[in-house]
């Protein structure tokens, strides 16, 4: 605990505190404006941090992450448009409640739940990360590759609604990770004689393309559409303690769900919110009220999506595996700042890790204060005409891509992936699994091949390693679970007749 106290003192120094404040505010802003996302902001900021101190840089990015997940609730409540994908579930109850003349209450519920969800996940982050990283130290290539396998299966089985589309996205991501100098055997692959492709597609230009460029194209395409906002009254944006007490169980449950889903590699905040919302509805005495402006719905969605942020930081810090698409960006930030993610991070960069976690906690508190104090201004800011912003974002995006390795090639990669991302999005293929597939493919291949190089028994060597075997069995179970479930449902239906 001494480490955390020291780190909290550090982040309250003027510069770190300034960066948390800046990051959280910008995050809330892009979160609130439909069409601007946290992924966009963080990817664009990353190249600007190349020459910053690495701790301050990551503090800034984490604060942006926290802010952006929270800001979305404002537009979800007032415009019925999720400012970020993670606040989709908030539109179902936030907007109706606002329509019924209680926009302040809806916003207060969302903001308060975000804070509590974020802090509960923060407690898990602080308590779980050190022991988990000690445990992960014993992980070798076999463990890593089975864990990544588990993540890939998980992405497929969790996006059940559009499992096929999720899988397509994931496989496309994997396919684009293949070209270039192959780390495992030192040979070129799929470069078709183009020397520009020798280095493959770098993560940052791909992220800039998928998260930023595709969104610019999309926004430019829809530029005429102006959303209509509900007016805020003059009431104070707060909810009585008594009402909060009634939500205690829901908040706790949704936060734990959010944290847990966050820890699972590769699954983002929107899934957390959906699962928490559906669970809250299922255990409620009045499920029919959900979707009509019910407070429980707002609370479940907003506490879960913020908790997801803290949860998703856990695998990133302890194992170097992204817990969500945005963590994939943070991961590349670590690498660009010459910090090797992985279980040794606590030993090699202990102060840095603790500062990161402290910044996460402080960012959540600042988010609450900023949102409560300035929700009226933000509500007006969400109506800003994006025609003024897109050119600036476009230029920043190009410069950011070029700065990575001073090559025009990367700029073209951004444009290419922007177009791919735009069309995938129009075809309703989710971009999250695409990015996760792109990131995980590299880790998966390297670890699998290292295992094979390491073990005399080839693949059978996995059975010498109990943790890896467990991960493998779990992956197989998760792969077949949906089929088992639907088979059981079918037999249940048939048995009464």
């Amino acid at each position: 605990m001494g480490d955390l106290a020291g780190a909290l003192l550090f982040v309250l120094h003027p510069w770190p505190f300034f960066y948390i404040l800046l990051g959280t505010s910008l995050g809330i802003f892009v979160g609130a404006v439909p069409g601007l996302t946290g992924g966009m902001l963080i990817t664009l900021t990353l190249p600007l941090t190349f020459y910053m101190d690495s701790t301050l840089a990551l503090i800034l990015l984490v604060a942006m992450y926290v802010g952006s997940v929270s800001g979305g609730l404002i537009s979800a409540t007032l415009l019925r448009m999720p400012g970020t994908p993670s606040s989709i579930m908030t539109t179902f109850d936030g907007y109706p409640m606002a329509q019924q003349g209680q926009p302040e209450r809806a916003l207060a519920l969302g903001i308060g739940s975000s804070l509590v969800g974020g802090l509960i996940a923060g407690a898990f982050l602080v308590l779980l990360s050190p022991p988990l990283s000690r445990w992960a130290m014993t992980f070798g290539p076999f463990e890593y590759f089975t864990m990544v396998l588990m993540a890939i299966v998980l992405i497929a089985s969790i996006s059940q609604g559009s499992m096929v589309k999720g899988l397509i996205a994931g496989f496309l991501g994997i396919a684009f990770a293949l070209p270039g100098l192959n780390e495992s055997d030192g040979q070129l692959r799929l470069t078709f004689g183009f020397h520009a492709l020798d280095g493959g597609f770098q993560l940052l230009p791909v992220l800039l393309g998928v998260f930023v460029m595709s969104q610019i194209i999309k926004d430019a395409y829809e530029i005429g559409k102006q959303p209509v906002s509900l007016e805020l009254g003059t009431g104070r944006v707060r909810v009585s303690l008594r009402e909060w007490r009634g939500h205690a169980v829901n908040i706790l449950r949704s936060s734990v769900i959010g944290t847990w889903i966050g820890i699972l590699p590769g699954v983002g905040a929107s899934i957390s919110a959906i699962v928490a919302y559906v669970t809250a509805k299922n255990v409620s005495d009045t499920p029919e009220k959900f979707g009509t402006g019910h407070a429980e719905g707002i609370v479940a969605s907003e506490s879960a999506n913020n908790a997801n942020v803290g949860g998703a930081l856990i695998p990133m810090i302890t194992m170097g595996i992204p817990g969500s698409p945005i963590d994939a960006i943070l991961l590349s930030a670590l690498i660009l700042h010459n910090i090797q993610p992985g279980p040794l991070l606590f030993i090699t960069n202990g102060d840095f890790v603790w500062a990161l976690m402290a910044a996460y906690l402080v960012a959540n508190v600042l988010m609450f204060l900023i949102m409560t104090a300035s929700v009226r201004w933000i509500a007006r800011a969400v109506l800003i005409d994006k025609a003024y912003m897109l050119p600036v974002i476009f230029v920043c995006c190009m410069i950011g891509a070029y700065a990575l390795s001073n090559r025009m090639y990367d700029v073209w990669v951004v444009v290419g992936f922007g177009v791919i991302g735009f069309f995938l999005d129009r075809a309703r293929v989710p971009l999250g699994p695409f990015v996760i597939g792109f990131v995980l493919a590299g880790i998966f291949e390297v670890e699998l091949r290292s295992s094979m190089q390491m073990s005399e028994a080839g693949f059978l060597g996995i059975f010498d390693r109990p943790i890896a075997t467990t991960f493998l069995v779990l992956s197989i179970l998760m792969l077949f679970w949906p089929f088992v479930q639907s088979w059981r449902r079918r037999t249940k239906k048939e048995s009464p007749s």
Partner: protein
Amino acid sequence: MLVSRILKASLAAAAITFAGTATPQAAYPEKPIKVIVPTQAGGGMDSVARILQRYFDETGKLGTQMVVVNMPGAGGTIATREIMDSDPDGYTVGFWHEGIITSKAMGVVDYDHTAFDLLGVTGYGILGLGVAGDSPYQTFGELIEAARAKPNEVKVATNVGLPVHFVPLMVEDAAGVEFRYVQTGGGAKRFPSVVAKHTDTAIFGAIEFINWKDANLKPIVFFSEKRLEQFPDVPTAKEEGIDVIANANRIWLAPKGMPEEARAFLVNALREAMADETVQQQFSDLGVVPEFIEPEEIEKQLDWWAATAEPLVAKARQLQQ
């Protein structure tokens, strides 16, 4: 184009005004010199460029600015190709390590050091084999004995096709033993692999041994001429009867065919920089031996590297599983 021509013209005009007695034809260098670094900003290789950049800025010894351009990717070959393909006018140069040899050996590129004009070496890092503090192999002798008794069982964490892969291959060859190679990645990845004993040993730089001394990483042999003052008890490979001296040289490369005037100017500027006390101190802090090696000398070393690496290539490529 127009802008740069105007800029150039006005710069030249300014130069004449200030110099007073300007020679009729402009002397090299008349514009900033671009230095291409094959790694991202930050980190050991990049620091070499930044230290020299600061030195030239402060002393004005270059008579112009040195601009550092980072071009990471594909094991340094994105950058080396860019250097090779640049105009040999003396305004684009760069540096890299022995990877310039091994990338060709692995078939990633079809050129090596002979495709460049060499400008010398600004310091070199010392490489050594390291084990976990509680490894069953506490000395180099024990490691070799184990590899001899159980061929193909002592695991070496490596970064395939780079010098950290070829140096153990040279040891193998000289000692007549056989290691088992596991692709792990850069130093920051080999370190946890060795310390957590997923692998038995790996190549690390002297600076990595110094940084990670308290984190259970222990050197057992260095491939240097003489012992390191930081590790007086650790023998050199030569003492152990293995005739492998392999440093990680910071080798300056220029596109072939640059004007002799520019070449001589740059070699001299680098040589002078390496004689500066501040520069030497800054290099030492990075674990780099601050010596300047003449172009002719490094050419000989690289020829030796190429000749030694050549017969090992077949084995290096065996790692493809």
